[in-house]
């Protein structure tokens, strides 16, 4: 049996009603779903084939035929942004998965055991935080070479201490509760209590943090691809498109404008979603607003 204490007198219907009344959440959700839909559609259809180079059409400004213009190889920018969305979402999603998958058990374990285990975890956290994400990404790609997979690992590693910290702080707040005492009195072990009582109660915290890290992951991936350490050509990625655009700012500014806007809109949508989720799920933040 699990207990929910986050939303004491609230039902699913109540949360839903609140969600529909939260502008930040709604706008964020719509944008996020739209970007995901665009990425999914790109698997079956894009306006133009992004693998075909049409040199006759190179660096065309936006037009009815090419809404966002074309790049230096004559590829349709809109189509490339659609395909690039896949890469951004995949990298950020897996990086969040790595962070949660490793960080949450570590944080929950540290909170449950306390003492030396806890202290050790916090010190390792300090260590990882001492390496700015970009710096560790540079080191990792320096070892294993550039590529989408190594970008995922680099961003994922940085996510681990973030989730460990959130899970630990959340779990520490739950452990002294009476229902945990009851569970212990019932003879449940540390692991069982963590899985059955602690994790369900910090799930909302993790969901909100996950959304934030997802957005940060998209920004980080774009940054890495931009400096040539992320996805490699010919795989279209938003960061890489901006790199290609950089030397052509004077002649073809649209090559920079639209991929950048794709990043901004995606990150904005995710951040709004995260803010909205935090408002809906956390009773404390509601009071503060």
């Amino acid at each position, binding site marked *: 049996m699990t207990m929910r204490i986050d939303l004491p007198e609230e039902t699913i219907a109540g949360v839903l009603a609140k969600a529909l009344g939260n502008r930040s959440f709604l706008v964020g959700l719509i944008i996020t779903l739209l970007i995901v839909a665009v990425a999914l559609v790109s698997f079956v259809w894009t306006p133009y084939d992004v693998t075909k180079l049409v040199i006759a059409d190179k660096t065309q400004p936006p037009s009815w035929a090419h809404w966002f213009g074309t790049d230096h190889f004559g590829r349709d920018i809109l189509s490339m942004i659609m395909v690039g969305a896949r890469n951004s979402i995949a990298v950020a999603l897996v990086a969040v998965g790595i962070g949660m998958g490793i960080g949450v058990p570590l944080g929950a374990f540290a909170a449950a055991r306390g003492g030396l285990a806890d202290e050790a975890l916090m010190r390792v956290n300090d260590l990882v935080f*001492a390496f700015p994400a970009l*710096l560790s990404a540079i080191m990792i790609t*320096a070892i294993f070479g550039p590529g989408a997979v190594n970008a995922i690992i680099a961003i994922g590693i940085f996510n681990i201490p973030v989730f460990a910290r959130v899970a630990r702080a959340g779990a520490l707040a739950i452990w002294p509760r009476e229902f945990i005492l009851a569970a212990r009195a019932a003879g449940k072990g540390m692991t069982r209590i963590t899985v059955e009582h602690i994790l369900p109660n910090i799930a909302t915290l993790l969901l909100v943090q996950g959304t934030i890290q997802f957005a940060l992951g998209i920004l980080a991936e774009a940054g890495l691809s931009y400096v040539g350490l992320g996805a490699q050509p010919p795989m279209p990625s938003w960061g890489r498109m901006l790199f290609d655009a950089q030397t052509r700012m004077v002649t073809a500014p649209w090559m920079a404008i639209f991929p950048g806007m794709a990043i*901004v809109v995606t990150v904005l949508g995710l*951040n*709004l979603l995260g803010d909205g989720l935090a408002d809906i799920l956390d009773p404390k933040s509601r009071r*503060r607003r």
Partner: protein
Amino acid sequence: MTAYLLKRLIIAALTLVLASMVVFAVMEVLPGDPARLMLGLNASAEQVEALRNQMGLNAPLMLRYLHWVGGLLNLDFGRSYTYSVPVIDLVRERIAVSLPLALIALALSTIIAIPVGVFSASRQGRAGDTLAMGAAQLGVAVPNFWFALMLIYLFAVWLRLVPAGGFPGWGAGIWPALKSLILPAIALALPQAAILGRVARSALIEVLNEDYIRTARAKGLPYRAVLWRHALRNAMIPVLTILGLQFAFLLAGTIIIENVFYLPGLGRLIFQAITQRDLIVVESIVMLLVAAVILINLLVDFSYAIVDPRLRGRQ
């Protein structure tokens, strides 16, 4: 308070030692033989072996680590394989670009963010707050290197107010040098200001709900005085934490921004060093930046004690 500061100091030192081990270990497992790199492909195996001995590359692992750390402490980072000059000289030259850039960006970000945070918090829920926080929400979502490209397009290509990139060097005079740092600093600062502004606002709002603020108002202090003197000071802890994190982020952020503007800073140097497999340069810069981050976090911990007298009594 001494106990608190001492504990933070020990933790920082411990983190620094662990970090140096990580950096050293990473560079150890990296493929590529520096001796081979220096001598070129035509060198014989004996020549390479001789140079390896001379460079101390064949010494036991622990000895090489201690040697490296000892060198770092004496500001002797070794010689760059590709530039054939001491790494410290390269670093000194490049840091004269990166550090001012990061500091200007940090100053800009703070100057923008704190007033915006105070403005928003004092008009919570009203139109001005909504507008400012909407702008902040947008600012957080903008990648700084894309923002940099847009700034270049607007101010360098269109309006021709500032150079699009490059750095004349401080020898060319303060103003020309500063001029080429303005756009990069703005590009770095604005997204950071958006984050800081949001933190400042929510920290202030939390403080403004406290009882002592009501007391201060009740005894007749004007709202403005309460806001700036009482509330802001108490809201400084989260703001300082973010400031510390931001400086670390800015130092790393300069790596990308320097590439956008072709600035000869540490960031450009580290990328060139990576492509040329000049590992000793990579290793030195990474260690330097990590040490800077640890030091800044330590300073932030110390500043808590100054800002918040309650911490002084705590262990």
